[in-house]
């Protein structure tokens, strides 16, 4: 087509015209499709791409938003040698680890129970999922009272059945466990719903075959259900870690920007908030966000590898 266009301009006028209109029509059609995408891509450029690039640039500057000076890698050096920062990394991973490795097995067990119980499936779904839709901010406030060391209902119940009580949020040594409890409570509904959706997708023929072979309910669960759920577990593991590494809302409500008591529940997100918006050290905060970003990427990659999840 293009050759006709270049070489035979004069004697193929009509064909040439045709080619032009089809081409321009196509171009016009493509253009229309781009209009469909326009709002989203303005959004991506302005609110995703630009901030990521700008944040990278800022991490090499000393900046408070108005006055900037280039200082090279000093922000990164400052963050990476800061004990406070590594403490937040430790807190974030500690809370995330226990949240994930308590919630996924527990949620899966509940999902299996809900899936196999004859009556009240819908009722249980509603009850178990409710915490997940309510805001984590309100949930954190409620837990402040539920886990109150002296007046809280949790300690009272523990005491009543003869179990040791805890100081929860009022003591640095136990505050993290309070957050973990809250996180488990808030996330478990999500894990249950995702597990349920996937449990119902396992083909019933496998169970029938196993039944004929004489497998008990528990055996079926161990040797059919669990292996078939590995993809779901991988998904929960990855989304769970991505969410955990960004934890901010509940620890801010419970401990303020510096995660009191004694920075015991300050997360990476809270560190960034503290440096960025209470100290207005934008450069340091940006360097920290990039370190956090890299941690999330590496960790997601490792998780993908470990869980052998196929994207």
């Amino acid at each position, binding site marked *: 087509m293009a050759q006709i266009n270049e070489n035979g301009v004069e004697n193929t006028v009509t064909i040439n015209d045709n080619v032009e209109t089809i081409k321009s029509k196509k171009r016009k059609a493509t253009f229309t499709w781009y209009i469909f995408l326009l709002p*989203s891509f303005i959004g991506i450029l302005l609110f995703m791409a630009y901030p990521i690039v700008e944040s990278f640039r800022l991490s090499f500057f000393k900046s408070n938003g108005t006055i900037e000076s280039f200082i090279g890698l000093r922000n990164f050096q400052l963050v990476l040698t800061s004990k406070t920062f590594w403490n937040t990394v430790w807190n974030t991973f500690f809370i995330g680890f226990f949240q994930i490795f308590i919630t996924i097995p527990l949620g899966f067990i509940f999902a299996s129970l809900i899936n196999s119980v004859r009556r009240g499936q819908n009722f249980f779904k509603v009850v178990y999922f409710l915490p997940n839709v309510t805001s*984590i901010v309100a949930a954190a406030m409620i837990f402040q009272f539920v886990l109150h060391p002296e007046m809280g209902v949790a300690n009272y119940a523990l005491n009543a059945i003869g179990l040791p009580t805890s100081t929860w949020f009022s003591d640095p040594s136990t505050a993290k466990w309070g957050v973990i409890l809250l996180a488990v409570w808030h996330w478990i509904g999500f894990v249950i719903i995702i597990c349920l959706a996937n449990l119902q997708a396992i083909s019933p023929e496998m169970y029938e075959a196993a039944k004929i072979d004489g497998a008990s309910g528990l055996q079926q669960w161990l040797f059919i259900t669990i292996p078939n759920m590995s993809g779901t577990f991988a998904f929960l593991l990855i989304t769970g870690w991505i969410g955990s590494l960004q934890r901010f809302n509940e620890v801010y409500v419970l401990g303020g920007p510096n995660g009191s008591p004694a920075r015991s529940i300050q997360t990476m997100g809270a560190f960034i908030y503290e440096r960025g918006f209470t100290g207005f050290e934008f450069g340091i905060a940006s360097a920290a966000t990039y370190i956090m970003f890299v941690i999330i990427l590496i960790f997601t990659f490792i998780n993908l590898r470990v869980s052998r999840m196929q994207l």
Partner: protein
Amino acid sequence: MDQKTSERISNIVKFIILLVCGTLLMMPFVWMVSVGFDRTANITMPFPPRLIPETISNFNYGIVFENGRLIKSYINSGIVTTSSVFLQVSASLLAGYAFSKGNFKYKRLLFILVLCTLMIPMEPRLIPLYTLFNSFNLLNTFWPLILPTVINGMLIFLCKQFFDQLPTTLREAAQIDGAGEFRIFFTVYLPLAGPIAATMVILSFIWSWNDFMWPLVVLNNQDLHTVPLYLASFSLENGTSLGGLTMALATVSILPIVVLYLFLQRYIIQSIALSGVKGE
């Protein structure tokens, strides 16, 4: 016969386990409501904790509503949530449709770009977005809360999946009748998109109503605080000293979401399971 009875017993046992654990899970909510209605709780928490208040009174609720800030924050959250839901859902419908039925250069590449946005957390974007809106003098307005929600990779993805299921023959028929792309979208496909639009409205409503970190950064003016911000500031100011008031406030703050959830739970659960996304 024997197997039947054992199955029955195991069923009952499972049911009881679920009931007990479910009750434990609901405990924080139950206690929240109870303390909120307790006349004494605004001064000190009752001890030993009781599940039924000694005297049920709306004292705490009276104070919470009299103080105009709660209602103000409700209005603010209402404005932000409706606008952001509208913007997000419209943009996602348009983009999802284009990625499903469209035929243009770089379609795959652009779609991958959309999916990449799912992996970008809020934190690295916080400061640049803050300075961006600052330079347009839009801090302490609702614009920063509304405009960035225009892009949501998850919703675009869901939308594309939905349109993929709709037949392409509809398009071809309309094309033969001479309809342009926009006409086809608005008159043929959009009316069929009800279920996915409803799902997206629910999801984005929950996300937007519960959003916390970004509003916290952008809104310093207390008059503009959304519900979660007002809650958090109340909690940080009063700590655990005003139990009853705080719990009454928490109850009122989660009420819209709980009501929405109870009415639409089947669809919410379905769409969460479908999208597999964490609603925070």
